[in-house]
C-alpha cells in the first residue's frame, strides 16, 4: 500500500506502539495509538497542543504508566515494575521542553552524573566522556558553568549532551525549542540535525515545521489523542489527506 520505502523497513523496529490507551480520570489522552519507530529514523510528532504528544513520549520510556495496549522497545514489552523500567530508560535519552538541567551541578557534572550514578563509572572517566560530549554540542568553554548562567539554547545543548552520555539507542525530544528565544533555536536544531545525520534514531515532538520537513523522515500527526495520519514529510506537508491535518497547518500559518 505504501508507495514510500520507510527507513529501516523490514528490520525490527526500535519502538512499537500497539493500541496504547492512556486516561486521566475520565479524559482519554491516548486513544488506541498504534505505530512504530524504525532504527535510524527521525520521527516527528506534530499536532495541536493538548493532543497527547508529550503523553505518548512519556509512555515510551515508562515515565507514565498507561491503561491499555503495549509498547515494545527493541522487541520487548516495557516492564510495569519501576525497578525494571530504569533498565529500559537508560537505553533511551530524553530531552525536555524546560531543559531540566540539575541546577546544583556544573554543566560537566550534569553530563557526567548519569554515567557515575547509573553505570557506576569512575568519576574521572565519566568526566572525560562528558568533556567530549560538551565539545560535540559546542560548549567546551562552559564545562564549569552552572545552568543558571547559561542561555536557554546552551542549557538545551547541555541537556542533549546529558542524554547522549548514556549512549542511548533512541533519543526522545519533547518540544526541545519551545521554551527558547528565537535567536537560540537554531543552535539547538543544528545539534539535532547533526545527530540525525549520524544516524541516531529520534522521536521529536515539535512545532518547528521547517525542521520536521527537512530533518524528519516520518511525520505523525496527532489530534485528540489519536493519530490523524502519518507518512513521509513530502506527503504530509504537500499533500495532506486529512482535513484535520490541513486545519492544523492553516492554524500554524503553514502553506495550503
Amino acid at each position, binding site marked *: 500500500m505504501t508507495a514510500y520505502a520507510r527507513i529501516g523497513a523490514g528490520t525490527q523496529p526500535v519502538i512499537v506502539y500497539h493500541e496504547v490507551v492512556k486516561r486521566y480520570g475520565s479524559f482519554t489522552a491516548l486513544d488506541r495509538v498504534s505505530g512504530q519507530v524504525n532504527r535510524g529514523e527521525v520521527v516527528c510528532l506534530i499536532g495541536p497542543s493538548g493532543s497527547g504528544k508529550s503523553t505518548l513520549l512519556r509512555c515510551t520510556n515508562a515515565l507514565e504508566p498507561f491503561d491499555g495496549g503495549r509498547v515494545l522497545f527493541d522487541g520487548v514489552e516495557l516492564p510495569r515494575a519501576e525497578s525494571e523500567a530504569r533498565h529500559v530508560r537508560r537505553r*533511551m535519552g*530524553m530531552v525536555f521542553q524546560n531543559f531540566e538541567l540539575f541546577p546544583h551541578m556544573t554543566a560537566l557534572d550534569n553530563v557526567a552524573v548519569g554515567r557515575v550514578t547509573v553505570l557506576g563509572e569512575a568519576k574521572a572517566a565519566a568526566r572525560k566522556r562528558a568533556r567530549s560530549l560538551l565539545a560535540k554540542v559546542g560548549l567546551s568553554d562552559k564545562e564549569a558553568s552552572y545552568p543558571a548562567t547559561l542561555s536557554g539554547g546552551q542549557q538545551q545543548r547541555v541537556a542533549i549532551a546529558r542524554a547522549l552520555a548514556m549512549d542511548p539507542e533512541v533519543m526522545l525530544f519533547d518540544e526541545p525549542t519551545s521554551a527558547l528565544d528565537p535567536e537560540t533555536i537554531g543552535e539547538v536544531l543544528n545539534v539535532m540535525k547533526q545527530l540525525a545525520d549520524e544516524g541516531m534514531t529520534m522521536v521529536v515532538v515539535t512545532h518547528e515545521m521547517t525542521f520536521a520537513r527537512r530533518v524528519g523522515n516520518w511525520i505523525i500527526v496527532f489530534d485528540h489523542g489519536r493519530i490523524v495520519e502519518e507518512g513521509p514529510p513530502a506527503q504530509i506537508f504537500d499533500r495532506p489527506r486529512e482535513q484535520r491535518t490541513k486545519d492544523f497547518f492553516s492554524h500554524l500559518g503553514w502553506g495550503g
Partner: protein
Amino acid sequence: MNLDWTVAWQYRFMLAEGVLVTVLLTVFTMAIAVPGGIVVMLARQSRFAPLRMAGTAYVEFFRNLPLILLVYWAFYVLPMIVDIQLSPFATGLVALCLNVSAYNAETFRAGVNSIRRGQHNAGLALGMSQWQVMGRIVLPQAVRRILPVLASTWVSLFKDTSLVSVIAVGDLAHNALQIRSQTFRVLEMLTVMAAIYWCLGYPQAKLVDWMHRRFGVSE
C-alpha cells in the same frame, strides 16, 4: 535594694557548665533530628501505605504536643515502657529529638515538594532509581532551599532546651536557677541568665537573617 552581682562571678564555672550543656543539647538534637526528619519525610512519601501512615501519625502526634509535656513524659513514662534508666541529659535529648524531628520532617517535605516534578523525571529518564533521584537530585536542592528554615528551627531549639531544666538536666537555665535558690539572688541570677541567653542567641538570629537573605529567595 541590695544587689550583689558578684554571685555570677562566684558561680562562673557552674554557669559555664550550663552553657556547655545547653550548646551540646542543641547540637546533638539537631545532629539527630536532621537525619531523623529526613527518615520520617521519606516514610511519609513511601509507596508502602503502613509506612506512610506511621510517618504521618508520628509528625501529627509529636508536633502538636507541648514540648514540656514530652520532657516530663520522657522522664516519667519512657523508663516504664523501655526498661532502661537514661541520664537526665539523654532523657531531655530524647524529648527534644522527638519534637524537632517532627518539625524537620515537615520542613524537608515542603522542601522536597518545592522541587519541580520535571527534575525528578530528568533523573528517572537517565535510568536513576527513585532513591538515586532523591539522593542526588532532589534532596541536595531541597536542603539548599530549606537551610534558612532549619536555621530558624535551630535558634528556637537553642532557647527551648531550657525546658529540660525541669528534669534536672544541668543546662544553663537549670544551673542558673540552682544558683538562685542557693543564694536567694533572684533578680541578679535571672538577669544574668537572660543576658547569657541573649548574647548567645542574638548572633545566631542575625546569622539566620543573613541566611534568609542569602538563600531564601533563590530561583
